[in-house]
């Protein structure tokens, strides 16, 4: 077909005008970091908390910041998940956040690698912040990726074992289990069957049993997700096969996957009063320190005990360790108020009193070394267990990856197939899963 110059010119004009329109919609953030930090301004802070007590705690924290920084007003937007956050960070614009918080530490690799969150190094250097004296190594690790620090820890979470002391007493159990072998026996003793279901289940081991995800189990076995070349270590590190085999034995020992999964569908919402641990449907629960506040609000009618999670039988010396995670906070790269936004980040993550007040209000573990020692921190016997887990030298978290939590999702998919009995050859399955993780990472690079 011959090309008509006039038609081509029209097409070019349309394309050019569309491109112009598109480029006009995006702004430059070049002036964001040089904005006057003392000018009166309003910044926007997006976070994911939604429970009324948590929302109040964050509002109180922001109010303290505004009092200390009268020139900065903070517009707080809650109940934001990572999907909404990612879109807003990419779109930029005046309605997006200047400061963003996320619960998903495994997405930090994606945020840092892509530049979705700005590099905080210039701000940290300008303010001469010594991170080693401020945060523990684990917390420093999960807030950066491959040397690019795009976030800081905003409180942290430690995972442990909750148990129903009344149920323990009724079953003649005197102390929480310390190894997974002991745990299996305790879970069986606590289980009371009723027809083809349960009157009380010792423990819900399924990977969809709220916090019983593979990464939380894995913290109780010494493991490394990636080798020194960045390749998946699932098939090479025996810890993964050990954890999967153990969890499967737990599933089979407590009635099998189908029966347990049907029972799981009777559970109430994880964030509501009808959580199965609150209602007595399960006698033990793997969970984070925040559950303490939920238990208090639900006014449970039994005595609650808290302990570190059991460890692998050959790692008894490391009993007391656990999975660590937390909320991360970062700076939107397209923000035009980066200096003011940095002040909020610095205040919320490093001001000892602010961190302690916020930790007390929200019931999370404080993230700075100073705040952990603060006399103002409200500590009871239960919360102390989580503080100890947070400071245990062998406590760990999941590694960051360029494609965020995708490698965890792939591992979890495989683990779910294994618990259902759909995988006949574990070694081969782990090799294939590792190869898939490597392919996904190669695609993301």
């Amino acid at each position, binding site marked *: 077909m011959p090309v008509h110059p006039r038609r081509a010119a029209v097409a070019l004009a349309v394309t050019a005008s569309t491109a112009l329109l598109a480029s006009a919609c995006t702004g430059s953030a070049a002036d964001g970091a040089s904005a006057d930090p003392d000018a009166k301004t309003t910044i926007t802070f997006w976070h994911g908390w939604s429970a009324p007590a948590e929302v109040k705690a964050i509002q109180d924290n922001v109010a303290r910041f505004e009092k200390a920084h009268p020139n900065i007003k903070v517009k707080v937007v809650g109940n934001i998940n990572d999907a909404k956050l990612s879109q807003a960070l990419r779109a930029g614009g005046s309605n997006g956040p200047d400061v963003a918080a996320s619960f998903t530490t495994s997405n930090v690799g994606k945020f840092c690698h892509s530049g979705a969150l700005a590099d905080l190094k210039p701000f940290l250097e300008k303010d001469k912040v010594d991170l080693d004296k401020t945060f523990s190594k684990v917390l420093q690790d999960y807030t950066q990726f491959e040397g690019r620090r795009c976030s800081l820890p905003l409180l942290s979470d430690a995972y442990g074992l909750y148990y129903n002391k009344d149920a323990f007493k009724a079953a003649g159990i005197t102390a929480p289990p310390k190894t997974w072998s002991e745990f299996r026996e305790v879970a069986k003793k606590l289980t009371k069957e009723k027809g083809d279901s349960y009157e009380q289940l010792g423990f819900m081991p399924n990977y969809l049993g709220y916090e019983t995800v593979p990464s939380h189990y894995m913290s109780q076995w010494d493991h490394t997700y990636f080798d020194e070349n960045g390749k998946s270590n699932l098939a090479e590190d025996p810890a993964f096969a050990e954890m999967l085999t153990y969890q499967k034995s737990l599933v089979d020992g407590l009635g099998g996957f189908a029966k347990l999964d*049907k029972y799981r569908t009777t559970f109430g*919402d994880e*964030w509501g009063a009808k959580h199965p641990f609150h209602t007595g449907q399960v006698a033990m629960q793997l969970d984070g320190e925040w559950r303490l506040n939920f238990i208090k609000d639900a006014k449970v009618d039994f005595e609650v005990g808290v302990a570190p999670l059991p460890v692998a039988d050959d790692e008894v010396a490391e009993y007391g360790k656990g999975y660590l995670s937390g909320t991360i906070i970062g700076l939107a790269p397209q923000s035009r108020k980066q200096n003011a936004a940095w002040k909020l980040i610095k205040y919320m993550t490093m001001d000892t009193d602010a961190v302690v007040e916020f930790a007390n209000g929200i019931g999370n573990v404080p993230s700075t070394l100073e705040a952990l020692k603060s006399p103002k921190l409200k500590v009871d016997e239960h919360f102390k267990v989580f503080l100890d887990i947070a400071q245990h030298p062998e406590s760990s978290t999941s590694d960051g990856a360029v494609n965020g939590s995708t490698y965890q999702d792939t591992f979890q998919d495989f683990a779910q197939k294994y618990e259902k009995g759909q995988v006949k050859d574990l070694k081969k399955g782990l090799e294939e899963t590792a190869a898939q993780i490597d392919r996904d990472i190669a695609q993301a690079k």
Partner: protein
Amino acid sequence: MSSDSLEGRQAALRSKRVRNTLRTAAFMSPWLIGFSVFFAYPLVSTVYFSFMKYDGLNPPTWRGLDNWTYVFSDLPKFWPAMQNTLWLAVVMVACRVVFGLGTGLLITKIKLGAGLFRTLFYLPYLAPPVAATLAFVFLLNPGTGPVNSLLEAVGIPAPSWFNDTAWAKPALTVLAVWGVGDLMVIFMAALLDVPKEQYEAAELDGTSAWQRFRYVTLPNISPIVLFAVVTGIIGAMQYYTQPIVAAKVASGVMGGSGQTFEPGYPDDSTLTLPQLVYDLGFGRFDYGAACVVALVLFALSMAFTALLMRRRGGLIGSGD
């Protein structure tokens, strides 16, 4: 005729042609602008980005066929998503059309309380998709749902519906059929429009009810059936809200801590291509692979529509 006047007439003719062209373009401009901005430009961009590495934040870089190879051979969720989308396009759309037509036929036959029944059958269509899906997941909950309690009470083995790979898509189909009010109204209008004389003539010829439906009703409403099938398939290609809400609620993974929700629960059985596009593009920041899947969806929609248009006669009889 002098050459001057001939040139003058030719110039006037050219000028008239230009004016006509401009006038036509002016009348067409709203459509042209809409087509360019909302169809042509996004389509061209999608093709372009399918060959690039692009995360929406950094400048795109050339990647050749890597995204295509990744999606077709290295992305394990692609083929289940494709199978599920095709299953829904065939089974769910067929069920909706059959039930829509069946309900329309019933409603046109009812003499007493027709208005009430029309309203009752149409109402579910007005329910917001998220609310309707939530209600269905609770009703069909294998542990606490009333449907399974009823089935168990009468001794019928109760499936796990949204928690079972074999039953999750049929459960979504039940939900879609429940909201068939839109098709019912369209079919009802078409059925009432069939000339009565044709039925009378067929009755005089001694035809059965089935023969009257097959040789009188169906040919008359064939354009409406085609419309219902084509729009149903396009809807199936965009099917996102119901499966993702059902999977989220049935899995119990609401997020908010260490858990991350993956669409498709259970075992990718409710994963559709639009969910995969969203997951790749907005979850993994992989616009390139997301664009490949979006183009596959586009090609599928075009193929289905072309096939239906060509096979229209064979599908519903020679109604033309």
